[in-house]
């Protein structure tokens, strides 16, 4: 029975800490070490902006590298082993180990963290793009060839739109893991939402929990935003909730595209 009293106290303190965490996000307070104001809407917005900038840059650079490569490999049907196993290898390398490797061997700072996050984002993008393009119905490609499209046109107007759902799956996976791993940025002296987590001795438990809440909400919002974006860019004939596109649907789709002057 002597145990139950302290346990109850701890439970009470813990319930308090969630409230305190929200309070930390809204109102600045003096740091645990004293002398500095931490938390509050201003600093959290600043950290969120840094976090998003870092993540968005990493995903954008990874897209610029992986999408053309995946489209090309998928189009010519080569490098299957490479394109598929790169994501298996990527999955097996712990994100913390990747960041640590960059810190220990390359150095700290924005550019290095950006490079590490880009490396992290490439495998899911490359594999999903490749798999998406390989999954395009060969008849659709044949039809496009028969209509006189060149290789580049086939990639851009047939394979890319038909693979868009798989590609966006890759973008989502990449974005989720980049946003999650950017939390480790402060280990390499890059301020992100991970700062209150890594520097818990300055920000305190409330800061730790507050940042965790904020970064979780942010990740879910990014996921939902990308889902909405995917809906918006998916060709109408391929949208979810419809029957899988049959030939009669695909031909008007190709028709409309090829009717435009090239």
């Amino acid at each position, binding site marked *: 029975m002597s145990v139950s009293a302290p346990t109850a106290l701890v439970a009470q303190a813990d319930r308090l800490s969630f409230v305190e965490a929200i309070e930390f996000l809204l109102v600045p307070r003096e740091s645990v070490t004293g002398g500095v104001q931490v938390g509050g809407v201003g600093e959290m917005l600043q950290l969120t902006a840094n976090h998003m900038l870092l993540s968005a840059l990493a995903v954008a650079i990874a897209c610029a590298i992986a999408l053309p490569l995946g489209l090309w490999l998928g189009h010519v049907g080569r490098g299957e082993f490479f394109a598929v196993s790169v994501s298996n290898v990527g999955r097996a390398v*712990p994100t913390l180990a990747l960041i640590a490797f960059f810190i220990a061997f390359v150095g700290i700072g924005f550019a290095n963290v950006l490079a590490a996050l880009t490396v992290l984002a490439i495998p899911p993008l490359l594999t999903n793009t490749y798999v998406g393009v390989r999954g395009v119905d060969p008849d659709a490609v044949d039809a496009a060839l028969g209509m006189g499209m060149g290789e580049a046109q086939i990639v851009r107007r047939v394979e890319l739109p038909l693979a868009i759902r798989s590609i966006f799956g890759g973008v989502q996976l990449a974005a989720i893991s980049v946003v999650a791993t950017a939390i480790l940025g402060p280990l390499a002296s890059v301020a992100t939402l991970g700062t209150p987590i890594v520097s818990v001795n300055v920000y305190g438990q409330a800061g730790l929990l507050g940042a965790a809440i904020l970064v979780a909400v942010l990740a879910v919002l990014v996921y939902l935003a990308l889902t909405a974006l995917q809906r918006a860019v998916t060709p109408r004939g391929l949208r979810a909730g419809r029957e899988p596109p049959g030939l009669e649907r695909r031909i008007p789709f190709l028709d409309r595209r090829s009717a435009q002057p090239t």
Partner: protein
Amino acid sequence: MSAVELVVAQLEIRSRRGGTCVSENGFCPGWIVDNLWRYVDPLVQHVILTVVSVAAGFAIAFGLALLAHRRQWLTPPISAFTSVLYTIPSVAAFLLLLPVTGRTTLTAIIALVAYTQVFLFRNAINGLGNVPEDTKDAARGMGLTDREVLWRVELPLAVPEVLAGLRVATVTTVNLATLAFFAGAGGLGAQIYQDITFRSNVVVAGGLAVLLAAACDLLILGGQRLATPWRRAAVA
């Protein structure tokens, strides 16, 4: 006294690190051999975290898949829920559970189990759904009851896809468990974090995590070959 002893021990480590390789922060095979013992406990913790989380996650996902297989309308909401769970950054999940379950291995395991669901559930439900209708018809024609069809036809045929999900879930769990030290659960990640600028440490701890993931992957692959003898026969 123990604090003093600890300091002395650390000083000894520092002095041993005085060798040129270590002080120049190179990749030091000598240091690694001398200090391999440091990685034994974290590795064991890592293995326990992975095995317990994947086993518990598998039991839950398998149950959910059987339920959703019978009541098809449950599949989309469960899928959506597991996807959203997977979206939450693991560091945040470990920290958000702290006020609820404390700095324990259990906290880490709860979060890791949550992350396995997206792979395990999706593959199990797809595997069960991809069994050809003709095969099930044939089984019913042979007089099998619904329960027998499930256990003797559908589940065996779903094994490859279920195990494919298990492989991805296991490798992902090994990866995410490197962050379990945020929940106070140790593991190889704690070792990386402790001395993140020391190259030999990063290579050994990170390398062990990658090797563990590869070993788990091969183990399940081997299990799959044993569990689906008809596939080998078809290939041979």
